[in-house]
């Protein structure tokens, strides 16, 4: 079957649910960058991010029949991705606990040589580390809102909670970030 690039996500999901791999491929190509970026920021590890991004799409394929087309595809996709990421983070914590590794390297951000790095890159690295230290749900909410540009309603759909709960998560996350960044990045 021929697919048009302008076909909506809902249309492509309907076709995917019927086993149409061409439609599924279009969905993958349309959303692979946002999903990989989200995973990279959630997990702080490129290999894990690549692995779980693939897994997210494979889950999307296998659950396509359960999707109800209502224009909320992005929330559906990032709910799958978020659940996988949180599950991987939980597993990492358990493994670290089992190994009695108390080093705080939950989400290592890439190290930058501060002498050579540009100031903007330094600031970004500091911000990324600060985000990586947020609790999982707060981090997920921040990433979906700020980096994926989702509305509070969409974030609520992806997290499986209410809009006021999203407001509260974001508020707490921003306050924590502001505290964490105090003194590390210059006041504008």
């Amino acid at each position, binding site marked *: 079957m021929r697919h048009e690039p302008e076909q909506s996500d809902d249309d492509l999901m309907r076709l995917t649910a019927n086993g149409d*791999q061409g439609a599924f491929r279009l969905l993958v190509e349309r959303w692979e960058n946002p999903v*990989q970026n989200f995973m990279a920021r959630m997990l702080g590890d490129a290999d894990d991010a*690549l692995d779980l991004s*693939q897994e997210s799409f*494979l889950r999307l394929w296998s659950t396509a029949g359960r999707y109800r087309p209502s224009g909320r595809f992005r929330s559906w996709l990032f709910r799958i991705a978020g659940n996988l990421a949180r599950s991987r983070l939980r597993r990492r914590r358990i493994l670290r606990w089992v190994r009695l590794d108390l080093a705080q390297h939950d989400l290592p951000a890439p190290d930058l040589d501060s002498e050579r790095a540009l100031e903007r890159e330094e600031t*970004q690295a500091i911000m990324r580390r600060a985000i990586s230290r947020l609790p999982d749900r707060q981090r997920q909410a921040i990433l979906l809102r700020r*980096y994926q540009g989702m509305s509070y309603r969409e974030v609520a759909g992806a997290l499986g909670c209410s809009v006021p709960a999203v*407001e509260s998560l974001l*508020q707490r996350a921003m306050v924590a970030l*502001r505290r964490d960044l105090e003194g590390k990045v210059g006041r504008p």
Partner: protein
Amino acid sequence: MSQGNDHVEEKILPCLDGELSPAEAEAVRAHCRTCEACGQAYADMEALVGRLDADRDTAACTPLWPLISERLASRREPIFRLRFSLAAGAAALAGLFAGILLDTSPSPSPTWQQETWTEVGTLLTEQPNTTLDSIYLSAIENGENGS
């Protein structure tokens, strides 16, 4: 939202994110213009939002389709193999029964089916020239004697 102690800090972020109605957003901004604490909180939050938004991802990532299509194919393969094996087995059985049904004429020499049954019976009982039907009959006899 009045001035004084009725601060609006928790509404600043939704206001900056465009999640409030125009009237609500204007009320928040109006309060922040006159309340020093909320005004400072508004400025801080606006700066932080600006920093985060400036750090959006723009780099292209690894193309996933080749990896995903490969994994989809490998997931499908075991089912395909199973189906193929079942189909092949069913066809072999059908062929065997068709051969037995069609081969009804008496023949001076034992048919290949009889030879096969004898070989299987010999293997099972380790006694020469034992056919499967003789094993079956002796089993029935033993069962009758036992009851």
